[in-house]
């Protein structure tokens, strides 16, 4: 376990933690984490993973930076408007920490490419903004047996949960089917307060650290709900559903399906 002088300084506040130390820092440097989305959640998650020295960060996102993103998507800037989000985020994260390799993938994830994209990664983080992607990522992680840290934000509320295939619940144990498009807030109803992705993304980053380090208790079998207007956190127990169509005892979803169904992409 060799560290350069710069690394000893950069990671000193990790190394002095009993739960991390040099060995834990090495695990972080060797870890490979896949981010779905370089938006509100992907920005703070990627920022903290990069700062912590998570050695390889893959990011998939098909969008370019828009001015309307900058109220909450902190890896991008006025100067990178028009640039692919993956490129803008890669530049920000690699400038923060040269130990980190960021692999940007400017494409849409689909049932046909997701399993290949996540194959070489240890952990998947969902920061997507729509239900078809959320269910696609959940089902793919169950099929590929990849731990998944899922986050979601809307208006003044955020949710985080950690899915460990074979051990705990999955997203479909919580919400078995996607809500019909009519029940999902339309684009003009889907405001989001500026700092909420920071709260939820930071919680996701910490879940990732605990999974890499093998320390602490994650949100396995639990959903954490943050209400920013009331300033409350609620932790709800979510048992695995033995009848779950994807992670249950006799699953009916054994390969990826078509998930798109006329949703307004926020």
């Amino acid at each position: 376990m060799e560290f350069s002088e710069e690394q000893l300084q950069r990671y000193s506040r990790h190394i002095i933690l009993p739960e991390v130390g040099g060995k834990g820092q090495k695990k972080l440097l060797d870890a490979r984490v896949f981010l779905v989305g370089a938006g509100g959640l992907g920005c703070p998650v990627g920022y903290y993973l990069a700062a912590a020295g998570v050695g390889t960060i893959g990011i998939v996102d098909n969008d370019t930076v828009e001015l309307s993103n900058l109220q909450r998507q902190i890896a991008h800037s006025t100067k990178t408007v028009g640039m692919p989000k993956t490129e803008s985020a890669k530049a920000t994260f690699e400038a923060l920490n040269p130990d980190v390799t960021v692999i940007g993938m400017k494409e849409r994830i689909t049932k046909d490419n997701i399993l290949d994209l996540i194959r070489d990664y240890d952990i998947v983080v969902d920061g997507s903004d729509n239900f078809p992607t959320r269910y696609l990522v959940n089902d793919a992680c169950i099929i590929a047996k990849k731990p998944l840290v899922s986050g979601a934000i809307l208006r003044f509320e955020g949710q985080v949960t950690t899915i460990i295939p074979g051990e705990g619940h999955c997203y479909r144990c919580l919400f078995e089917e996607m809500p019909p498009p009519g029940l999902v807030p339309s684009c003009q109803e889907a405001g989001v307060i500026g700092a909420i992705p920071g709260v939820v993304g930071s919680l996701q980053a910490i879940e990732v650290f605990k999974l890499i380090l093998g320390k602490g208790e994650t949100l396995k079998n639990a959903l954490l709900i943050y209400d920013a207007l009331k300033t409350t956190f609620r932790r709800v127990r979510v048992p695995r559903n033995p009848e779950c169509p994807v992670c249950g005892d006799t699953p009916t979803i054994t390969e990826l399906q078509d998930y798109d169904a006329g949703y307004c992409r926020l």
Partner: protein
Amino acid sequence: MEEIKPDKTINIKGHVCPYTFVKSKIAIENMEIGQVLEILLDYEEASRSIPKSMEDHGHTILKLEKINETDWIIRVRKEKE
């Protein structure tokens, strides 16, 4: 009592907190259980904080000695991973 010979010696003179402990901790993590690390330092606060933190981490302090006007020696036996 016969003095225990260190398995490894590090010189962290010129370093201040928290790097004094960072360097000591990395050194002891790379050693085997039962081995003894000797630390040479000149930062007074660390002569108190390193023994305390090493004990908090479960290791045993075998020796803490001011050897001259400016320097201290600490010997620690690694007790656990």
